[in-house]
């Protein structure tokens, strides 16, 4: 495994940690105060920091460190995670995600935003309440902030010192700090140890910078029976005579500075050696060194700076810390089953598998299903009695195959949680942009659906959420005026219903302004000025191409790429979308999607001697037309009257050019389908063979795109059957030619 692969795994884990982080923060935001939730959030950031450190992703480490410090205050109950605090933290989680993305894919993050958040986080850690507005970010160093440069006087001008190093100028040429004596006070907190740092190692590293004397302050140490063995009681006063700068001294504590009280100052000039309570005595540290002993000797012989030795020391410390972190993690794991809460939160064991392998397996199982069906069919054909043991064995095989197929499909099934979590970020960001207060409530995040569906769900959902925030929810003032809570709520829920996944997006905004929608539709020539439309029909106008009611084109939505794109994306997934709205109370979008794109429930039909599969999801009902119900309309069009309404008849055989003339509807079967425009059409087929679950085989991948055909499948008898693209066939019947569909790219 090379470094890139390890790094790739790290980024994959980052994704998981980020998801963990966000869901934890959202739980806290909802009032969850379970310490395990706080711990999970802390661990997520800590793990990202740890991994990032190993790969030298300094920006990520620096930010994660500040974030972690503030989270630690929450963990130790020094900071109450109220909404204001969590707002900062959720934003920080977003920035952390951006930093991870930037580290992985290149690109940059908004530095001023990062700096601003660092400042806010630091303020929180210091116990300052978050500022209401967005202050212009001042120069706030993400790295440990040095108080002042070595002998420089204290800066009382009110400016925060900016870190400044003299690296590259050559330390040797700095006579001013040669032999300076620093007084260092170091009081580690419990967290320092908990995070795998070790005071003794830090002191060892410090001692390498020069001549050191140390005084251990044990005053805080309680009696044996009162002490917590994992708490921190010792503090140290250190006197260090060194040629190094204060920055170098602080660098020793780089990964621990937030977990300890650290003071570094230059010893008073007038302090004579006699008055100095501690006389520096060089240590013989050879025993503490595993490998760098020769470097130490060299150092002693030649005090001139040796960056290589420093690097070795740094690397050693890093290794030590990494090991310690690993140990701490092991310990946590070992301790986990002890408490029920921790056990409940423990993730089940997982393995990572390349998606291609899963897809290959799914494909093979698909073949197995087909093969088994073919075998069954030939046995049935050759066994007239239907009682042979082969026949019975085959039935068992069929059941097993079905189970294998279900299990394999379950491998691809993923909870919708990651997509939902992405939405919460979008809500936050868009709400911030438009100055609204919005809370996203999610339900059923653990509902599972095929990965392909999940991947394709994000875009339309993002679009809808943006719309809901931008147009759906009113401004806080308007809400208050209407007697509503100024904070709007968007509810995103997922559930399984009859073999499909149902996703609902509900807002408690103003609902659809039907008058405006209607006017807009008239203005855009979508409907006639005198059209008589029901409320539902008006609501559904928003799914018409090019429809946008936004008064002003904003950055967020309303660029004319509207809900029609959303609808087409959902339909491309084999799903349906509908809207219901109550003026003043909000709107609800309901999406019903197949659980997988690999298998499909279809109705197997015959058209002009060909076998076709029509997706069941598209079919509303089937009926046998009677002569009296068929009406001619114009030269070629025919309508069928169904319960006092007329529905255009579409001869599938004609549209697909299977036959030259239209078939007699009375001799066939009509499938009432709902198509893209929301309207219904009656598809004429010759006969229905039955319903079947079929394995979808992509035509694009195996052959080429065929207009009017969505995909293909292999039937039990080994024949290939084409799966009908209902929308394309309906569109063709309206006079549009059957052309290869453009891919639906929902933008905006």
């Amino acid at each position, binding site marked *: 495994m090379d470094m890139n692969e390890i790094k790739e795994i790290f980024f994959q884990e980052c994704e998981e940690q980020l998801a963990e982080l966000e869901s934890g923060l959202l739980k806290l935001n909802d009032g969850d105060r379970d310490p395990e939730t706080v711990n999970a959030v802390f661990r997520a950031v800590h793990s990202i920091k740890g991994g990032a450190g190993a790969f030298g992703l300094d920006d990520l480490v620096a930010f994660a460190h500040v974030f972690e410090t503030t989270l630690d205050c929450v963990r130790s109950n020094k900071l109450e995670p109220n909404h204001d605090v969590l707002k900062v933290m959720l934003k920080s989680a977003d920035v952390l995600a951006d930093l991870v993305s930037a580290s992985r894919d290149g690109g940059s993050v908004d530095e001023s935003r990062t700096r601003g958040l660092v400042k806010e986080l630091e303020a929180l850690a210091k116990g300052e309440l978050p500022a209401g507005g967005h202050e212009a970010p001042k120069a706030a160093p993400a790295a440990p902030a040095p108080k002042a440069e070595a002998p420089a006087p204290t800066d009382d001008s009110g400016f925060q010192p900016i870190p400044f190093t003299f690296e590259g100028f050559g330390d040797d040429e700095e006579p001013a700090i040669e032999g300076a004596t620093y007084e260092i006070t170091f009081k*580690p907190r419990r967290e320092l*140890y*908990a995070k*795998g740092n*070790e*005071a*003794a190692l830090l*002191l*060892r590293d410090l*001692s390498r910078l020069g001549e050191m*004397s*140390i*005084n*251990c*302050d*044990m005053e805080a*140490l*309680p*009696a*044996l*029976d009162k*002490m917590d*063995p*994992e*708490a*921190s*009681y*010792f503090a*140290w006063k250190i006197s260090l005579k060194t040629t190094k700068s204060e920055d170098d001294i602080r660098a020793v504590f780089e990964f621990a500075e937030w977990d300890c009280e650290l003071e570094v100052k230059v010893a008073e000039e007038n302090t004579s050696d006699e008055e100095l*309570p*501690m006389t520096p*005595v060089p*240590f*013989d*540290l050879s*025993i*503490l060194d595993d490998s760098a002993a020769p470097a130490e000797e060299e150092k002693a012989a030649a005090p001139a700076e040796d960056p290589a030795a420093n690097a070795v020391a740094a690397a050693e410390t890093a290794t030590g810390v990494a090991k*310690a972190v690993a*140990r*701490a993690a092991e*310990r946590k794991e070992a301790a986990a089953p002890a408490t029920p809460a921790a056990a409940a939160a423990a993730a089940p064991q997982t393995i990572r598998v390349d998606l291609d392998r899963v897809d290959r397996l799914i494909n093979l199982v698909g073949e197995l299903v087909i093969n088994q069906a073919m075998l069954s069919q030939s046995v049935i054909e050759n066994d007239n009695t239907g009682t042979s043991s082969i026949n019975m064995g085959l039935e068992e095989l069929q059941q097993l195959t079905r189970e294998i197929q279900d299990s394999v499909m379950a491998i691809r099934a993923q909870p919708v949680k990651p997509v939902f979590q992405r939405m919460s970020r979008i809500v936050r960001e868009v709400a911030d942009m438009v100055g609204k207060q919005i809370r996203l409530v999610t339900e059923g995040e653990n509902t599972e659906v095929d990965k392909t569906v999940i991947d394709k769900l994000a875009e339309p959902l993002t679009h809808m959420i943006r719309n809901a925030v931008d147009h759906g929810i009113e401004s806080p003032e308007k809400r208050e005026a209407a007697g509503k809570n100024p904070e709007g709520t968007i509810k995103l829920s997922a559930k399984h219903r009859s073999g499909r996944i149902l996703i609902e997006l509900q807002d408690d905004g103003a609902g659809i302004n039907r008058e405006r929608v209607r006017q807009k539709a008239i203005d855009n020539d979508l409907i006639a000025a005198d059209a008589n439309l029901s409320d539902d029909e008006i609501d559904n106008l928003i799914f018409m191409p090019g429809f946008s009611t936004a008064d002003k084109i904003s950055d967020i939505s309303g660029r004319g790429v509207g809900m029609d794109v959303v609808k087409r994306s959902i339909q491309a997934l084999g799903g349906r979308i509908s809207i219901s709205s109550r003026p003043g109370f909000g709107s609800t979008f309901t999406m019903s999607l197949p659980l997988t794109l690999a298998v499909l429930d279809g109705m197997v039909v015959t058209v002009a001697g060909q076998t076709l599969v029509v997706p069941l999801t598209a079919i509303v009902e089937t009926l046998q037309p009677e002569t009296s119900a068929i009406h001619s309309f114009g030269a070629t069009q025919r309508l069928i009257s169904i319960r006092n309404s007329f529905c255009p008849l579409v001869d599938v055989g004609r549209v697909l050019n299977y036959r030259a003339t239209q078939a007699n509807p009375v001799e066939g079967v009509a499938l009432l389908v709902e198509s893209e425009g929301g309207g219904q059409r009656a598809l004429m087929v010759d006969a229905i063979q039955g319903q079947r679950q079929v394995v979808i085989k992509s035509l694009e991948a195996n052959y080429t795109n065929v207009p009017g055909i969505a995909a293909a499948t292999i039937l039990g008898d080994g024949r290939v059957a084409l799966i009908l693209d209902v929308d394309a066939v309906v569109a063709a019947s309206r006079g549009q030619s059957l052309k290869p569909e453009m891919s639906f790219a929902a933008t905006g």
Partner: protein
Amino acid sequence: MAASKTGSGTLQLSAVLDLNEASVLHGKLTSMRGSDIVIDASAVERVGAQCAQVLVAGKRAWDEDQKSFLVEKASDAFEKTMQLIGIDTNNLVAKEL
């Protein structure tokens, strides 16, 4: 535990006295209270500050009980680290170094 109230016990310190060991060591010491104790630090390879805290607290508890608390056969690493963090291994008290 093994130590009786009247006799004396020997506590063999682990090689690695880190964060994980602090609670273990604390538990062992607590269970051995009331009798003289000899700490065998000959196998110690690494000492963390938290175990040092436990040892110092232990020494104080034994002093209070007027029992003897003796560190014997300290390894070089034990001596050096205790010295580094400013603890006199003989008396387990702060020692300015």
